[in-house]
């Protein structure tokens, strides 16, 4: 078992003919992900990377191929539309890689998604991977290995850093999910923690948070009251000054809220072991196996 994506994932790529979309589609296919369709309006009827059939609309693609997960690589100004189109076509899992979507657009998109049966991962995220089964994202596949640790993170390369350290120690991952660095996203830490708690393959969880917002505090509350599996956490941005955006749109301490110290305190109060630096995460996880 694993969560969200696996061997049965039939992936649709929105924006398959763009530079990013084409490059990563090739990478996903060579990892073994079943890419069944691509969508680029106006290019329906042609064939994309890996001989993937291209459609004009998501609806057509779903009808013809039975796609059940969509990944979005379209530019920020078109991404909200792409997410809504996927949801309206009934795709249950939508992964949006795109960075730089205006927050007020995401506010509406998320409120609309809540009225549908679709789950969004991201935006501004690396995607997710179930090692050996499906890579739905832009992460380098070879740094992962299959195993008992669930990983959930707001970051991209910091997740690679942690996952690679686990893999080099011979500790594999059930699924690694990047929920993204934007202030309004589709899936929270709590959503993913709940899935890992229910997943029989996942024995322990690594959670990588960062400054900004209160998603980590909510996660701490969930861990304290609902979780039985051990969680190891790291919070990036302990040295970040207030009021400055640290790369990610969501990584900002504003109005005195969202500091690393608050998040670490909340997690420690929930009996989560918080690593002092990324290298410590794999050590803590190894000691718990």
């Amino acid at each position: 078992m694993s969560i969200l994506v696996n061997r049965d994932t039939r992936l649709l790529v929105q924006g398959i003919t763009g530079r990013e979309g084409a490059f990563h589609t090739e990478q996903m296919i060579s990892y073994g992900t079943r890419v069944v369709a691509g969508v680029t309006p106006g290019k329906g009827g042609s064939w994309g990377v890996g001989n993937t059939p291209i459609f004009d609309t998501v609806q057509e693609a779903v009808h013809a191929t039975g796609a059940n997960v969509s990944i979005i690589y379209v530019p920020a100004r078109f991404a909200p539309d792409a997410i809504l189109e996927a949801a309206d076509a009934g795709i249950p899992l939508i992964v949006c890689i795109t960075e730089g979507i205006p927050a007020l657009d995401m506010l509406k998109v998320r409120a609309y998604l809540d009225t549908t049966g679709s789950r969004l991962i991201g935006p501004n995220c690396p995607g997710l991977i179930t090692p050996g089964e499906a890579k739905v994202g832009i992460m380098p596949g070879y740094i992962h290995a299959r195993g008992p640790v669930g990983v959930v993170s707001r970051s991209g390369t910091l997740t690679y850093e942690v996952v690679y350290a686990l893999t080099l120690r011979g500790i594999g991952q059930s699924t690694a999910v990047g929920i993204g660095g934007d202030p309004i996203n589709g899936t929270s830490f709590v959503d993913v923690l709940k899935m890992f708690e229910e997943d029989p393959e996942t024995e322990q969880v690594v959670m990588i948070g960062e400054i900004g917002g209160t998603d980590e505090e909510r996660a701490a509350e969930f861990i304290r009251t609902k979780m039985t599996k051990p969680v190891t956490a790291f919070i990036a941005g302990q040295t970040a000054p207030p009021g400055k955006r640290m790369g990610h749109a969501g990584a900002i301490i504003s109005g005195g809220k969202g500091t690393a110290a608050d998040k670490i305190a909340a997690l420690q109060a929930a009996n989560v072991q918080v690593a002092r630096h990324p290298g410590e995460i794999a050590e803590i996880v190894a000691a718990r196996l």
Partner: protein
Amino acid sequence: MNLQEFQAKRIFGQYGIPVPQGEVATTPAEAAAIAARMGGPVVVKAQVLVGGRGKAGGIKLAHTPAEAEEVTGRILGMSIKGLTVKKTLVDPAADIRKELYLGLVLDRGRRRVVMMASSEGGVDIEEVAARTPEKILTVAVDPFLGLREYQARDLALGLGLPKEQWGAFTRICQGLYECYLGCDASLAEINPLAVLGDGALKALDGKMVLDDSALFRHPDLAALRDEDDETPEERTARLNDLSYVKLDGEIGCMVNGAGLAMATMDIIKFYGGAPANFLDVGGGARADKVAAALRIILSDPNVKAVLFNIFGGITRGDEVARGILAALAEVPTRVPMVVRLVGTNAAEGRAILAQANMITAETLAEAAQKAVAAAKGA
């Protein structure tokens, strides 16, 4: 992107919010002329993007044009929290009876735009929130329904405004909400919203923060960016599409990815050093971008060592290595450099850098310790 007070109030005025008819002065003589035209007492306000201008002496009342000229002369050129005042706003003085607070922010947890109001206006709202949170009233706005009249009325009632002011207050609330949406703001704040002697409401101070991700659809607002408000390094970073924040430490950092960049800063601190900056070169960073980033880092005289932490995924180690060499050829330096390359094409990258005189490291912990040691030895 932050707007200056005079810009924010001008925009508020376009959305029907009553604002003082102020003018901008960049010389004392201009301020005197504006005050003479206005004909009464004026307030001269430093236009810098920091809080606490009043306490710093950047806001002064002047009763005559001569006095306006004199205080403007004192305010211009003043340094407030490290920023030099180059502009002042001259507003007609107002007969203030009461100061309220009215603001809109994006509440991430509730996933709503939230309107906040308080009877404790004119002071730092964060202090009010910390000391007397019950004095801040909030209403959450549904993104599809918008701010409704009854919600604004609830706030008016909560603030204890008399019935005669409900209409004007509601129009200001709705104007501010329309302004927030229309500009893609992440913060829009009137503080104080003053109740004047004649019972009218007026936005005496304004603050707006715009969502950088939405500036593409607001070229008029993007054009309001004032080059005086950013350092040359911040400007170079912005034009090269680099995420950069200057800090006070001695170890320059170049990292790909925001989370990893923050973690790199943190681990430098953990091993007893201090980061000089946050810098994310982004995904797929090419040689020219890396070179621009290195020039920014080396332009900081505090920097005693540079740490490169690159986890190759989309970003290729060999590309980054070439960028570092290109930058070093342009900007020769004696600052010690510690490089840690992992992931895609890391071996090729390390081979390219072997000819340069650089300290290498396998893990992030090792790299941080070596950078801290190098900075102390320099």
